[in-house]
């Protein structure tokens, strides 16, 4: 792993850690955006240009904005001193650490460690991705279009105000 990738990995992990620990929800969302950007950098470093830019477009341009707006829409009256964590929070952390430890141990022990370093640097040309999407993966693509349409309509219906509901201040 070279220096650039190391920096991106640090940005990703630091952003994610900040997003999961900070108190202010807006700060959390923005830290999450930083993590998504760092991940896009990692994708770029791995040669997946299209995925990297798609990641920025979708996550920073749409998901982060969505999260920030949802935070603004659901902000309760400022409760001072309210804990940002669920009450018995220690088991959660314990399970998290346990799972992470198990994953890291498995990666360390796996055959991957002994596999020879790949010498080729494959590229994912946009043209090849497009051709795959229109041939091998055309059915998933269509299903995805359907899913996105359903999600769009579903999200609008869910967030829509009930017609009978009075406008509360």
């Amino acid at each position, binding site marked *: 792993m070279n220096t650039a990738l190391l920096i991106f990995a640090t940005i990703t992990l630091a952003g994610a850690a900040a*997003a999961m620990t900070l108190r202010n929800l807006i700060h959390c969302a923005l830290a999450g955006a930083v993590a998504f950007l760092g*991940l896009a950098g990692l994708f770029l470093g791995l040669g997946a240009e299209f995925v990297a830019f798609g990641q920025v477009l*979708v996550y920073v341009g749409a998901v982060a904005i969505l999260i920030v707006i949802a935070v603004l829409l659901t902000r309760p009256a400022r409760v001072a001193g309210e804990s940002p964590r669920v009450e018995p929070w220690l088991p959660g952390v314990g399970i998290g650490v346990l799972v992470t430890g198990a994953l890291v141990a498995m990666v360390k022990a796996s055959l991957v460690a002994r596999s020879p370093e790949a010498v080729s640097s494959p590229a994912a040309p946009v043209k090849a991705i497009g051709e795959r999407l229109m041939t091998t993966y055309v059915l998933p693509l269509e299903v995805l279009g359907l899913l996105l349409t359903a999600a769009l309509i579903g999200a609008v219906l869910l967030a829509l105000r009930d017609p009978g509901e009075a406008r509360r201040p």
Partner: protein
Amino acid sequence: MSTLQSFLIVSALLFGIGLTGVLTRRNAILVLLGIEFMLNAANLNFIAFWRFGPNPEALTGVMFALFAIAVAAAEAAVGLALVIAIYRHARTANLDAVEELKG
């Protein structure tokens, strides 16, 4: 340690951070953000395995990551709409306050 392995470890750490966040944060929106991190960790694995795998010309990892990103966008939209609907009903987005359905 091979490069692939270091990517896998970064991904495992990202997954762990997301999981811990999901298990410990009260606010539903941050739980959703934690799930996004876990999905992203999986994406990083897909891309890393594609890059260092035996058959990169098939572009399988890239395709999987692309589809995962698109599905994650749909998931975020519906999830946040749900959070807003819950907020309208319960006047809070804290998950431990929404326990009416508890048996």
